[in-house]
C-alpha cells in the first residue's frame, strides 16, 4: 500500500515532465523508481526496530543506490553480530613507528570522504615520558623515527559504556551484541552531540557530500559500516564491521608493518588478545572516565 502511494506520489512529480514529451524514457523510469525508493526511505524505521524483511528491503535499496552511483558491483551486507563474540583490540606502543599505513588502509577500506581527508585513525607522536596527548603532535612527517618519541594511535575504542550512545537524542547510535558501536546513517540528524561526548576523538562528521573517485570505492560494504555516507551524518571506525563479521581482521591490523595491532575475540580464552590482557601490563586511555573501552595499550 505504501509502495503504491509512493509510486503515485513519484508519478505526480515526474509525470509533469513526462507528459510534456509524451513518452516515458528509460531515464524517467529509473528516476521514478529512485524517487519511489527515496520516498520509502523517508518512512523507514530505526534499523534496530525493523523486521527482518524490512532490513532486507533497506539493504537492497542501499545496494541499488550505490550501484547507480558507482560503476563497481557494490555488495551490501547486513550480517549480524555472532553469538559468543565480543571484539577487542590491543595496540603495542613499543612497535609502532608512525608509518600511518593503518590510516591509509582504513581510508581505502571504509570509503571515507577524500576531499576533507577524513581519517578515523589519528596517530599522535608523543614525547617519551608522558601520556598526555596535549603534548603530542598529529602532523609529524618524519621518515626516520626520531629519538625520544613514541607513537600513540587512537580511533573508536568501541566502549562498553559508550558516552556517544548515551547522548544521542534520536537513538541513531547503539552498541551491537558483538561490542561494535554502530550508527544508523539515515537516522542520524547530524547534531554532533556524540562528537562532543566522545573523549577519544573517534567521531567524524560529513560537512559536505562525501566524494570518492569511482575506482577507489570499496565495493564490499556493510549497511552499518562502510557504505558511502551522505552529507550531514556522523561516521566512525567500526572495527571494519564488514570484515570482522566475516572472520577477517580490520584493515588497520592487516596493514600494520610492525605487527603493533592485535585484534580478536575477547570471549575466546585462547585468543592473542586474551593472552596479551593476561600477560602484559595493559592500560586503557582515559580509564578514569568509566567508558570501559575495548582498546588496550601496552609496551613490550
Amino acid at each position: 500500500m505504501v509502495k503504491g502511494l509512493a509510486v503515485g506520489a513519484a508519478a505526480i512529480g515526474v509525470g509533469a515532465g513526462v507528459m510534456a514529451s509524451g513518452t516515458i524514457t528509460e531515464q524517467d523510469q529509473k528516476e521514478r523508481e529512485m524517487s519511489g525508493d527515496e520516498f520509502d526511505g523517508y518512512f523507514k524505521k530505526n534499523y534496530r526496530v525493523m523486521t527482518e524483511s524490512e532490513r532486507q528491503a533497506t539493504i537492497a535499496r542501499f545496494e541499488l543506490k550505490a550501484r547507480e552511483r558507482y560503476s563497481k558491483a557494490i555488495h551490501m551486507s547486513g550480517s549480524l553480530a555472532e553469538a559468543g563474540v565480543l571484539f577487542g583490540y590491543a595496540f603495542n606502543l613499543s612497535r609502532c613507528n608512525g608509518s600511518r599505513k593503518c590510516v591509509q588502509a582504513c581510508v581505502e577500506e571504509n570509503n571515507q570522504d577524500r576531499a576533507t581527508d577524513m581519517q578515523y585513525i589519528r596517530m599522535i607522536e608523543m614525547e617519551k615520558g608522558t601520556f598526555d596527548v596535549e603534548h603530542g603532535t598529529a602532523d609529524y612527517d618524519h621518515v626516520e623515527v626520531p629519538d625520544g618519541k613514541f607513537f600513540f594511535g587512537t580511533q573508536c575504542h568501541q566502549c562498553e559504556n559508550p558516552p556517544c550512545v548515551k547522548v544521542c537524542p534520536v537513538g541513531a547510535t547503539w552498541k551491537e551484541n558483538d561490542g561494535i558501536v554502530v550508527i544508523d546513517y539515515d537516522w542520524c540528524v547530524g547534531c554532533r552531540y556524540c562528537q562532543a561526548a566522545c573523549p577519544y576523538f573517534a567521531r567524524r562528521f560529513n560537512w559536505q557530500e562525501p566524494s570518492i573517485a569511482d575506482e577507489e570505492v570499496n565495493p564490499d560494504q556493510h549497511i552499518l559500516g562502510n557504505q558511502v555516507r551522505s552529507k550531514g551524518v556522523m561516521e566512525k571506525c567500526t572495527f571494519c564491521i564488514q570484515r570482522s563479521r566475516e572472520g577477517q581482521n580490520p584493515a588497520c591490523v592487516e596493514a600494520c608493518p610492525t605487527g603493533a595491532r592485535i585484534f580478536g575475540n575477547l570471549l575466546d580464552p585462547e585468543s592473542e588478545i586474551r593472552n596479551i590482557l593476561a600477560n602484559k601490563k595493559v592500560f586503557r586511555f582515559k580509564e578514569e572516565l568509566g567508558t570501559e573501552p575495548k582498546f588496550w595499550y601496552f609496551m613490550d
Partner: protein
Amino acid sequence: MKLESVFFCTVLSLVGCGNPVPPSSEARPISEGEKARTLKELKAIPVEGHEGLWVEGRSHQLKKCTECHGSEPVPLDVPGKQAHGDVKLAHAKFMECSTCHVSEIPAVLGFGTKRVNLDQSHHLCASCHNTQGEDFILGSHGKRMTGWKGPRVVKSCVACHDPHEPSFKALPTMAHPKIIPDRLKGQEPDHE
C-alpha cells in the same frame, strides 16, 4: 495537546523506548575444511609444543640447494670466492656464518646440539632472543597472517627480519592529515 501526544507516540514507536538489543546470529566457527585449506595455502608449519599455533613455511619460498649444487654437501671453509659469499653479515659483531649454519649443509641450522631446518628457524632465533621468542608465542611480537577467526598462522621471524642484516631501514611515513581545513589556513590561532 492531542497532537503532541500523537507525535510523541510516533517517535517512541519508531525509535523504541528502552533501546531494543539487535539480534545476533548463531556462532559460526570456522569449518575444518576451511582451516585445512588455509594451512595448506600458507604452507604452515605447526610450532612445536604450542598447539593451535602455526608459522608460515619458509623453505618453499627458497630455491632448493640441489637446484644449483649436486647432492654433495657444500663445505663452508673453502678459501677463495664462494657463491653466496656476497651475503653481508651484520648481525651482532661476534657472529659468523657458522654461528647459525652449524652443519656442512647450510640449510640445516642449529644451536648447541639442536638442529632445525629453515622452516623452524624461530627456535634458533629464540635461543638468543628469548624474550622476543616468548612474545612471539604469546602474540605481541610478530604478525598474524590469518584473520581473527582462522587458524593462528604467524609470519616467521625472517619474513620481517633479514637474519644476515637485521637492522631495519627507515619506513617512509604517509603524509599527515589536514589538521586545519584548507578554507581556514592562515587563520590558525597562536599556540604557546
